[in-house]
């Protein structure tokens, strides 16, 4: 026997009320001078024993009345461990229906989501009429479609019928936490949380949090209802992204596609195709073999015929989960890109200029073809920097600059904050002290530069790292076939000391280190832009980087990285809101959106914000490419892609023992097992009320009879 409101048991002190009244009556004595004493003595002698027994019986009955009433208010219940997780009587339940992308897997005519809905309906049919039910759709966000547990089963059924799976990832912890909060406010009945899920491993990523919730709420049952015995075998495209240089019209752009095999058997001859704006572009590629649990990366090259917004879609053959058999990415293909090289020193010959090697690396073409190349290079002196020239450049390179005036430094800071990219090659003319003295310059850099130095211990040079590259720019050289950066040698350099991550701001990263671990190239995000700091010049004076075969691809990849970072907003997770800016001429005009399924609908108007037109669109539940049009029949003014969470491709189920062990309260709280939760099987408060009523009647009857009997 347990009590739902054990605090009410404190009311048992009221049992002492009849005793207190009895004693009070004994002590509150009226004194009477009495003449007919012998009749009293005679009566008392005859009745004394009986009177005492009757008094005792009445006292016990009265105490029982109080005790039983208090027990009734404490809500006595009988709890037991239910092997099948079912409790008797009405329940207050929150149904969590997993609607993440993995629930779209299906080995037959129905998906796991359909099966889950059917299981919920069946469970609902078995509930008592007095039960209260709520429905949450759970993915990596929680949608409370029936927010509060309610007795309105028809509303619940309608919400269940309307429920649809999404392309989002899964995190059950958030939904379970909200469910616990909702049920904590309910008392007087059995409470449970039922999670209808495919038990995908990723869904339990916060299992420790869930376990703690279960421990904190031992009276609320958490019952995972696993749909499907095991996860389906699945091949999925888990990544599609542009790599290499900046996507430019009529220039080859490389896309890296990663295909994961989450089945139990190897995948052979997986056909991978790539299309641009719906037109097969790169043809098909055959992935010969993907081992179980392995991921295969493929690079495909695409030529964009025109600049503008394009959509690239990678496709593999359909399987159990169709949602990850296609993956889209939106690309803003440039027609021309301006860069600015600021040289700090004077040189008599071209080859001695501070930006000579850099300019050639950025535009690695003969002079006669330079104009056809998408990238343009402009040279400037430090004193020539102003807002106008900065505004025309997507990337600014500072080569061997001694320092800047505060005004120019402020302009540079404003440029980067507004989305520009800055790459710094310090050289012999660079005076770190002067840079540090200018706050705007000092703030921009991801690391502080020390005084120029030579390699320690009398070494002639210090080499770059040769492997274990973690940064996207340098990751290419993890493949030995691409050559080695370990042969880049520095004879003199500025030691870099990374700054501490700023709260809400940039987090310094290292693109390349020296072999001794010191940062050789650092970068971070500053405002909307990025800053990259090399520890030496872009000349062969202090190192052999510019002479190294990797210099050109390194700089191209760096440019591509800087460009993609500014374009990263074109790839969204399901449900994320898209916004982009447009010229003011579009102000107030309606825009329409073509969704991944080909439907096109008017989605809003272009608003004005900070003298720019702004488009916002938030109905991004479906994975795929979205194109935004202002005028029908014209090219899209913007495009973006929604990508499914790659973790959803892994349909393998979590280890049941692990789930049970982590979720069950017994690990701390003492219950038997996850599916053998303590449930309320019987409630007794009404019975106790009846007993109290009967006892009251008995007391009244006895009191009447006893008083008459005497």
């Amino acid at each position: 026997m347990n009590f739902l409101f054990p605090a009410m048991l404190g009311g048992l002190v009221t049992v002492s009320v009849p005793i207190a009244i009895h004693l009070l009556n004994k002590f509150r004595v009226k004194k009477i001078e009495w003449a007919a004493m012998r009749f009293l003595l005679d009566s008392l002698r005859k009745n004394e024993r009986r009177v005492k027994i009757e008094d005792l019986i009445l006292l016990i009955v009265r105490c029982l009345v109080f005790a039983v009433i208090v027990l009734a208010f404490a809500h006595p219940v009988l709890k037991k461990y239910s092997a099948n997780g079912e409790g008797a009587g009405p329940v207050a339940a929150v149904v969590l229906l997993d609607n993440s992308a993995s629930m779209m897997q299906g080995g037959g005519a129905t998906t796991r989501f359909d099966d889950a809905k059917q299981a919920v309906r069946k469970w609902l049919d078995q509930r008592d009429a007095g039960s209260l039910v709520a429905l949450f759709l759970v993915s990596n966000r929680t949608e409370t479609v029936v927010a509060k547990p309610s007795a309105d089963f028809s509303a619940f059924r309608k919400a269940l019928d309307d429920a649809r799976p999404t392309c989002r990832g899964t995190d059950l912890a958030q939904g379970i936490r909200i469910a616990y909060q909702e049920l904590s406010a309910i008392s007087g009945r059995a409470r449970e949380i039922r999670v209808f899920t495919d038990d995908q491993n990723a869904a339990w990523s916060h299992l420790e949090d869930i376990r703690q919730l279960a421990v904190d709420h031992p009276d609320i049952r958490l019952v995972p209802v696993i749909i499907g015995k095991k996860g389906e075998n699945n091949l999925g495209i888990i990544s599609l992204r542009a790599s290499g240089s900046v996507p430019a019209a009529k220039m080859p752009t490389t896309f890296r596609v990663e295909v994961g095999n989450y089945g139990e058997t190897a995948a052979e001859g997986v056909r991978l195709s790539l299309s641009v704006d719906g037109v097969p572009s790169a043809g098909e590629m055959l992935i010969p073999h993907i081992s179980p649990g392995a991921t295969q990366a493929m690079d495909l090259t695409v030529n964009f015929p025109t600049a503008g917004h394009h959509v690239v879609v990678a496709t593999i053959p359909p399987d159990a989960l169709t949602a990850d058999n296609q993956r889209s990415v939106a690309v803003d293909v440039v027609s021309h890109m301006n860069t600015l090289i600021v040289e700090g020193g004077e040189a008599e010959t071209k080859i001695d200029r501070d930006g000579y090697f850099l300019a050639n690396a950025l535009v690695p073409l003969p002079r006669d073809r330079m104009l056809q190349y998408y990238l343009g290079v402009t040279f400037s002196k430090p004193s020539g920097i102003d807002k106008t020239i900065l505004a025309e450049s997507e990337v600014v390179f500072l080569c061997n600059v001694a320092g800047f005036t505060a005004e120019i430094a402020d302009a540079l800071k404003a440029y980067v904050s507004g989305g520009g990219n800055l790459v710094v090659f310090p050289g012999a003319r660079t005076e770190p002290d002067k840079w540090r003295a200018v706050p705007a310059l000092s703030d921009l850099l991801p690391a502080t530069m020390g005084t120029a130095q030579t390699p320690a211990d009398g070494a002639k040079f210090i080499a770059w790292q040769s492997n274990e590259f973690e940064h996207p720019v340098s990751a290419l050289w993890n493949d030995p076939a691409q050559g080695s950066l370990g042969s880049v040698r520095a004879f003199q350099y500025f030691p870099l000391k990374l700054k501490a991550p700023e709260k809400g701001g940039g987090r310094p990263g290292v693109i390349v280190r020296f072999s001794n671990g010191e940062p050789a190239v650092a970068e971070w995000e500053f405002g909307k832009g990025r800053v990259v700091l090399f520890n030496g010049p872009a000349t062969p004076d202090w190192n052999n980087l510019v002479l190294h075969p990797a210099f050109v691809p390194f700089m191209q990849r760096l440019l591509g990285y800087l460009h993609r970072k500014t374009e990263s907003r074109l790839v969204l997770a399901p449900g994320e809101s898209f916004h982009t800016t447009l010229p003011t001429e579009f102000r107030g005009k309606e825009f329409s959106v073509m969704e991944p399924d080909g439907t096109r609908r008017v989605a809003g108007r272009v608003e004005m914000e900070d003298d720019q037109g702004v488009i916002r669109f938030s109905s991004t539940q479906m994975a795929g490419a979205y194109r935004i049009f202002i005028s029908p029949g014209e090219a899209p003014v913007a495009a973006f892609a929604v990508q499914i969470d790659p973790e959803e491709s892994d349909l393998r189920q979590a280890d049941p023992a692990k789930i049970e062990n982590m979720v069950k309260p017994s690990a701390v709280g003492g219950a038997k097992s996850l599916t053998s939760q303590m449930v309320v099987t019987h409630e007794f408060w009404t019975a106790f009320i009846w007993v109290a009523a009967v006892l009251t009647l008995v007391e009244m009857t006895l009191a009447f009879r006893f008083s008459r009997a005497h």
Partner: protein
Amino acid sequence: MSANLLDPDAVSRGESLGLLARRIVEGYRVGEHRSPFHGFAIEFAQHREYTAGDDIRHLDWKVLGRSDRYYIKQYEQDTNFVAHLVVDGSASMNYASGTVTKLQFAKALAACLAYLILLQRDAVALALFDTGLQEYLPRTDSLGKIRHIMDRLASFEATRHTGLGISLEQVAQKAKRRGIVILISDFFDDEEGLVNGLRLLSFSGNEVVVFHVLDHAEITFPFTGTCKFHDMEGDAELQTSPADIRKSYLKSFEEYRQRIRRTCEKFNAHYVLADTQKTLAEVLCGYLAFRRKVGRK
């Protein structure tokens, strides 16, 4: 004090009803009551057979001459009577659940009776007793003595136990002539004493009227809660819940009262329950009305 004992209402109503001797009483003065003596002077009543010891002056010689049998002539004569008012003055008579104690009620009852009796030119003797006869006022037929009677009543205080048997024996010795003995008491004594006393009084030819004076609380026992009862004629104390023993008490008390009544009936005495909650006039006039209805025998 003495004046208070006469209840004007009781006296005025009693006057109209009068006090009639239920039986023929022995009187020393001619009145409206029939004499117990069968006429030696006034009016022939009947003959009876001679028995040894009879005064031969009353032999009817004519009958003897005609029938050779010895008969005594008896005469009938109206005469006055002597009423002995015997009032219990024991400590138990001090009980009162209201404003009037049983003793006050008894004293008032006795005073009224004395007044009424004297008013009709009959004689009254007063006896006050507790453990024994404490006060005795010899008979008087003068209405002027009523104040003296009331003074004696008023000055008597109840302090001791009840000795009913001894007291009635002493009263019987005092009441040499047959008359009415009006006994006013709560009879909280052993019942044997009452039986003996009534036997003595009755056998000596007295008409006995018993006023059983009881407080209403003694009859109904209305107490609640927890009470500690202290015996008014002793040291006994008893703490109890009256509700627990009410029924038993009432049963026991009613049985006792019925025994008193049966004892009275056994000795041909009128039994009158005098509840002190009732007015004196109600009790007195009720009895006198009953007495008139019964009439002379």
